[in-house]
C-alpha cells in the first residue's frame, strides 16, 4: 500500500539488469520449490539451492534471511518488511549482526511469494547463505558522520554488484564476508572480516583504499591484516578479485574448520599472501577489464547524493526534560551538517529480545523516517536502527514516538546494549540460548544511573562457537556451550570490534545459566573499583589483566 507521505531517499536504485536478475531468480527458485514439493528434487539436491536463497531449516520452521545491502533501507522497504512479518511470519522480524533481517516462522510454500514481494521493493535473499560472497556490510553512519573521510556506500554498492552472481566466486571454499568503512573510527568491525576496505587519505591528501584480509571470529578468531596499504580507487575491484583468486585456489576445501581465508592468510603469512595477491593483481591489470572508471564511481556515488540539508540551523540541542537529555547523551552522534544529528534507536530496552521488532514498530519507524530522516534508516551490526539525517529540533518529537514504541532506551553503547545471536531458541547450530542471558543481564543493569556510571561496555553473546553474536569482540564476551545437554556459559574479557580490535581472553570454566549474570555483575564491580579516571572497562582490563576479574567472577560460585 502506498503511503502518501513516503519519501524517496538518496540510495541506489535497481537498474534494468538488477531488476531482471532478481525477478528471474524468484521465478527460478519458485520452480525449484515446486520441483522439491513434487519430489523431482531430493532434499540433498534442494538444500544448496535454498541456502543460496537465504532459506534455512531451523528448530521450529524455515528461516529466511533477507539481505539489507550495507544496512540501508528506505521507508518503503521497511514497510514491506513489516508487511512480510505480518503476512507470512508471526508479526516480527529479527535484525542481525550482519545488518540483515531474519524471519523465523516461514513456510517453504510461501517463499516464492515472499521473494516476489521483496523483488518489488528491490530486495532479495540471494547470497545470504552458502559458500559465496555474502551481503556487504558498512558503517551505519555512512554519509552522515562528522568524522567520515568519504561515504563508504558507493564502494559497498559497487562491491555488491561485482560480487552478486560472480561466476568465479559462487562456490568458494567457505563463506566470505566483506565490510567497508569510511572513517578512522571503525563502526563496522572491519578487522573481523574476511576482507575489509577502509577509505583512507594518503600524505598527498588523496583518498584511496586500505585493504585488509584474514579477519574472522568462529572457532579460530583472527584480526585482519593489511594486504594493500593504499589501493588506488580504479584498481580496487582488480585488487579484490586478486585476493579472491588466491583464496579460491588455495583455501582448504578438505576441512570445513580450516576453509576460511583467515586460516590461509595465517598459514601462508601476510608477506607471502601479499606476494601472491600482487602477482594475480598484475595479471588482472594486464587484461584491464576490472578497472573501475571514475565515471562509473561518480555514477554510483550520485545515487547517494548528500540530501538537501537546511542551512542556518542551530547546533543547540532542544531542552525537553531529563529523559530526553539522557537519550541525547548516549543515542545521538555528531552529524556532518550543522543543526543535524544521527539518532540511534536501540532495539534493546532491558527485557526485550535484542534486534527484534514487530510489524507495528517497523511501520511506525518508517513513518518517522519519512517525517524526520529523508525516508531512510540504517540497520547496525549491533542490532540497532539508525535515523541518519535528523534535525536537532525534531529530536524531541522522535524521542516521544520512540517512547510509545518502547524503543527509547538511552543505552547505546552501554552495558544493556547487548548483541545476542538467536541461539538455541531458534538456531539449529546453537549449543545454548543467548537471548535469555542477554535479557537477564540487561534487567540486572536496568538502573540508568548505574549504566551511565559504568559507561561504555559492550557485551556480546553467542550460542555456539560460530560466533554470530561476536563474543570474541565483546569487552565482555559470553559463549554458550553444551555439556551433556545442559547449557553452560564461558566468559571472555578484553575483546574489541572497533579500530583497537582485540580478541577476548577466555576466563576459565563455564558458568550455569543461573550463575552467568551474577558473574558478569561481579566482573563489572571489579572494574568500578579498579578503574582510573576516564578509563573504559576495556582500558582497565588491558591495564590490569584477567586475575582480579577472574577471582571475583568465581568467588560466589565456589562458595
Amino acid at each position, binding site marked *: 500500500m502506498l503511503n502518501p507521505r513516503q519519501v524517496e531517499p538518496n540510495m541506489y536504485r535497481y537498474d534494468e539488469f538488477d531488476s531482471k536478475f532478481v525477478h528471474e531468480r524468484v521465478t527460478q527458485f519458485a520452480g525449484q520449490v515446486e520441483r*522439491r*514439493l*513434487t*519430489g523431482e528434487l531430493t*532434499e540433498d539436491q534442494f538444500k544448496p539451492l535454498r541456502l543460496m536463497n537465504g532459506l534455512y*531449516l*531451523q*528448530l*521450529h*520452521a*524455515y528461516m529466511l534471511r533477507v539481505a539489507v545491502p550495507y544496512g540501508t533501507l528506505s521507508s518503503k522497504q521497511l514497510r514491506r518488511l513489516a508487511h512480510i512479518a505480518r503476512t507470512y511470519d*508471526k508479526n516480527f522480524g529479527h535484525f542481525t549482526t550482519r545488518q540483515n533481517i531474519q524471519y*523465523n*516462522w*516461514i*513456510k*517453504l*510454500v510461501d517463499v516464492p511469494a515472499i521473494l516476489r514481494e521483496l523483488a518489488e521493493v528491490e530486495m532479495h535473499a540471494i547470497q545470504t547463505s552458502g559458500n559465496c560472497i555474502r551481503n556487504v556490510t558498512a558503517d551505519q553512519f555512512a554519509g552522515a558522520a562528522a568524522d567520515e573521510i568519504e561515504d563508504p556506500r558507493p564502494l559497498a554498492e559497487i562491491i555488491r554488484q561485482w560480487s552478486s552472481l560472480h561466476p568465479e566466486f559462487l562456490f568458494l571454499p567457505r563463506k566470505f564476508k566483506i565490510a567497508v568503512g569510511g572513517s578512522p573510527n571503525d563502526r563496522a568491525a572491519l578487522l573481523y572480516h574476511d576482507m575489509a576496505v577502509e577509505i583512507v587519505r594518503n600524505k598527498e591528501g588523496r583518498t584511496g583504499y586500505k585493504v585488509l584480509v584474514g579477519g574472522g571470529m568462529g572457532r579460530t578468531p583472527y584480526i585482519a591484516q593489511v594486504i594493500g596499504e593504499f589501493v588506488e580507487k580504479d584498481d580496487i575491484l582488480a585488487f579484490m578479485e586478486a585476493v579472491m583468486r588466491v583464496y579460491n585456489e588455495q583455501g582448504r576445501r578438505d576441512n570445513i574448520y580450516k576453509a576460511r581465508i583467515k586460516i590461509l592468510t595465517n598459514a601462508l603469512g601476510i608477506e607471502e599472501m601479499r606476494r601472491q595477491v600482487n602477482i594475480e593483481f598484475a595479471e588482472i591489470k594486464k587484461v584491464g577489464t576490472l578497472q573501475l572508471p571514475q565515471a562509473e564511481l561518480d555514477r554510483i556515488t550520485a545515487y547517494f547524493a548528500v540530501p538537501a540539508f537546511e542551512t542556518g540551523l542551530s547546533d543547540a540541542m532542544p531542552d525537553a526534560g531529563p529523559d530526553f537529555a539522557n537519550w541525547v547523551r548516549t543515542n545521538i552522534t555528531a552529524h556532518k551538517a550543522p543543526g543535524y544529528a544521527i539518532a540511534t534507536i536501540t532495539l534493546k530496552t532491558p527485557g526485550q*529480545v535484542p534486534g527484534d521488532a514487530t510489524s507495528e514498530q517497523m511501520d511506525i519507524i518508517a513513518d518517522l523516517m519519512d517525517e524526520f530522516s529523508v525516508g531512510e534508516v540504517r540497520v547496525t551490526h549491533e542490532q540497532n536502527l539508525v535515523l541518519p539525517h535528523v534535525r536537532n529540533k525534531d529530536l524531541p518529537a522522535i524521542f516521544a514516538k520512540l517512547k510509545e514504541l518502547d524503543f527509547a532506551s538511552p543505552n547505546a553503547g552501554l552495558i544493556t546494549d547487548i548483541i545476542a545471536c538467536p541461539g*538455541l*531458541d*531458534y538456531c539449529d547450530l*546453537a549449543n*545454548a*540460548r543467548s*537471548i*535469555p542471558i542477554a*535479557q537477564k543481564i540487561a534487567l540486572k543493569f536496568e538502573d540508568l544511573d548505574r549504566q551511565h556510571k559504568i559507561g561504555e561496555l559492550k557485551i556480546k553473546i553467542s550460542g555456539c562457537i560460530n560466533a554470530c553474536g561476536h563474543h570474541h569482540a565483546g569487552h565482555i564476551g559470553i559463549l554458550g556451550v*553444551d555439556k551433556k*545437554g*545442559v*547449557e553452560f556459559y564461558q566468559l571472555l574479557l578484553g575483546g574489541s570490534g572497533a579500530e583497537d580490535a582485540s580478541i577476548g581472553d577466555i576466563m576459565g570454566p563455564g558458568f550455569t545459566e543461573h550463575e552467568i549474570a551474577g558473574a558478569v555483575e561481579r566482573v563489572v564491580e571489579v572494574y568500578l573499583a579498579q578503574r582510573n579516571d576516564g578509563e573504559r572497562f576495556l582500558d582497565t582490563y588491558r591495564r590490569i589483566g584477567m586475575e582480579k576479574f577472574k577471582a571475583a567472577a568465581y568467588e560466589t560460585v565456589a562458595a
Partner: protein
Amino acid sequence: MAQTIQMLTANRLKTGDVLYRHVSGWVLMLADGEVYLDAAAADAALAAAQAETVQNDFVAPYLFEVRESAGRIVPVKEREIIRAAGPTVHPHTGKQAGQYNA
C-alpha cells in the same frame, strides 16, 4: 545402567513444522508421539522413516533421547525441549501457544 529411551522426530517439508513419529504416521505434539523403549525398535522406526522420505512429506528424521519425569515423557536435551515447545523468549509463539506452521 538405565535403559536409553528414544523418540523419532523430523520436520514437515512444506511448513518446517516439528513432527514426532506415531505408529500411524506423524503427529505435531511430542506427547502424542511413540516412545521406543529399546534401541532395536528405535532403529527400526528410523530406518522406516528414512525410507519414507522419498514421499516428500517430511525431511531430516532423527532419534533423540527422552526420559520420564513426573509421569510425563520429556526430552533429555534442552534443544529438544525447545523444539517441542517453541522459543523460550517468545512464549506466545510455537506449540506452547498452540501454534503450528501447518
